[in-house]
């Protein structure tokens, strides 16, 4: 048997150990990325083989937390893909305005950058005071950072450029308070945002949403888990509600492809329709 085949068995066993010991099921994640992250963690933590990590993972929960960080790393930024936020302003907001109250579910919010971006858009469009944004993630550490809303200066610089490109109507500097090396997001942006733990792999539906925003999360799931998450979104959206995916994610070939119509093809914004 070749080394790579043995390594494959070892990673299967490691995922099984995590599931049985900690209850997180990473077996339904996209395997190519899981493999890469396990190998990266192995090398960073100075282990010679995947098997070597299993006994320690089973007994040392702090060690598991370190690995879990590798599994949930998400690199994001405010107003990531500015054209998407422009499309939301132009094509989604006018419809959202027709509802008396607007509920947004931002699934997989990681450290909160895009949740604050959505809050800013809704604010500038006059919808914020009648909106609630539920921003969820399965990683409590990420959620703590999201709630704190503190980002480094480089991040804020990038965010400012993105904001301008996204059709921002004001000055981005109004939305944060800068210190020497970091900036904290303004409290008003936190008032209508609820950060909560939710695991798309295990938990149930959030009801009556008008917009589900889930970008660059499904790429980390295998097809089955991707379909599970999409079915949750479909169940939670009202008729005519909107779904926004990552720029390189598509509903094509998924179990819910006949439940949606395109609103903006390049921004990957869809609208729920009667099949």
């Amino acid at each position, binding site marked *: 048997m070749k080394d*790579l085949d043995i390594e494959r068995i070892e990673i299967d066993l490691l995922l099984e150990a995590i599931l049985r010991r900690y209850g997180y099921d990473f077996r339904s994640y996209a395997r190519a990325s899981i493999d890469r992250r396990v190998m990266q963690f192995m090398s960073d933590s100075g282990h010679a083989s995947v098997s070597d990590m299993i006994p320690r993972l089973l007994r040392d929960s702090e060690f598991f937390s370190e690995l879990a960080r590798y599994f949930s790393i998400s*690199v994001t930024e405010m107003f990531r893909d500015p054209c998407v936020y422009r499309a939301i302003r132009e094509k989604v907001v006018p419809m959202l305005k027709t509802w008396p109250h607007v509920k947004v579910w931002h699934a997989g919010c990681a450290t909160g950058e895009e949740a604050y971006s959505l809050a800013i858009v809704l604010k500038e469009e006059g919808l914020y005071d009648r909106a609630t944004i539920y921003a969820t993630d399965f990683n409590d550490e990420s959620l703590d950072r999201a709630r704190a809303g503190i980002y480094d200066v480089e991040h804020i610089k990038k965010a400012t450029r993105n904001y301008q490109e996204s059709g921002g109507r004001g000055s981005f500097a109004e939305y944060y308070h800068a210190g020497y090396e970091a900036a904290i997001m303004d409290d008003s942006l936190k008032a209508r945002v609820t950060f909560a733990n939710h695991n798309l792999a295990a938990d149930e539906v959030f009801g009556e949403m008008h917009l589900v925003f889930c970008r660059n999360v499904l790429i980390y799931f295998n097809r089955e888990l991707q379909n599970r998450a999409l079915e949750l979104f479909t169940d939670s959206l009202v008729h005519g509600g909107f779904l926004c995916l990552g720029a*390189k994610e598509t509903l094509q070939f998924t179990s819910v492809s006949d439940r949606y119509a395109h609103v903006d093809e390049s921004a990957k914004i869809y609208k729920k329709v009667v099949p």
Partner: protein
Amino acid sequence: MKTRETRPPASASGYRAVAVGGSAGGFEALEAIVGALPMDFKPPILAVQHLHPSDNGSFARHLARSTRLPVIEPCDKEWIDPGRIYVAPANYHMLVERSGAIALSVDGKVNWSRPSIDVLFKSAARAWGGSVIAIILSGASRDGAEGMRAVKGAGGLTMAQDPASAQVPFMPRAAIELGAADEVLCPEAIGRRLIELAGEPRQLKDNRGGNI
């Protein structure tokens, strides 16, 4: 090298895919390689070129003008079909699943790059072992050298652009110095070699010591 009589149709090739990576000066080399390939070239080509994050598909559109094969900037989980060129979208790593689908990721940069050539090559080696051809082209970083070693270690075939023919020789040279390049060729020769290899039957690769 191989006689015509033993060459079966291209579909019998032992190679499942060609993975190619380039950076500064890599685009011209890639154009020369894919421009030489015939319409019936079967193994899919997976290409990573270091791009500006705001590239927005222009690399793919540009490349499509220099080849007979369809050029695709894939979405996540898109099936990899024969006879096509898949280019990594700007700002995403491109990996492959054993099932034969594209897997995209927004994980952090590797070698200061996203997409990273190492990420593609290592994932291709992991997914398909010895049936991958990896090619490293002109560029100014070390990205791809480790990935070449992974492909070679898994029994695949690796080629480096001859540094003398590269606009920026550092990237192929890094792979060569690592002992990770089976063959060192100029882009035109890489193109000819790919055509030859695509027609090479599986058992010939076995004879050469490859592990199928």
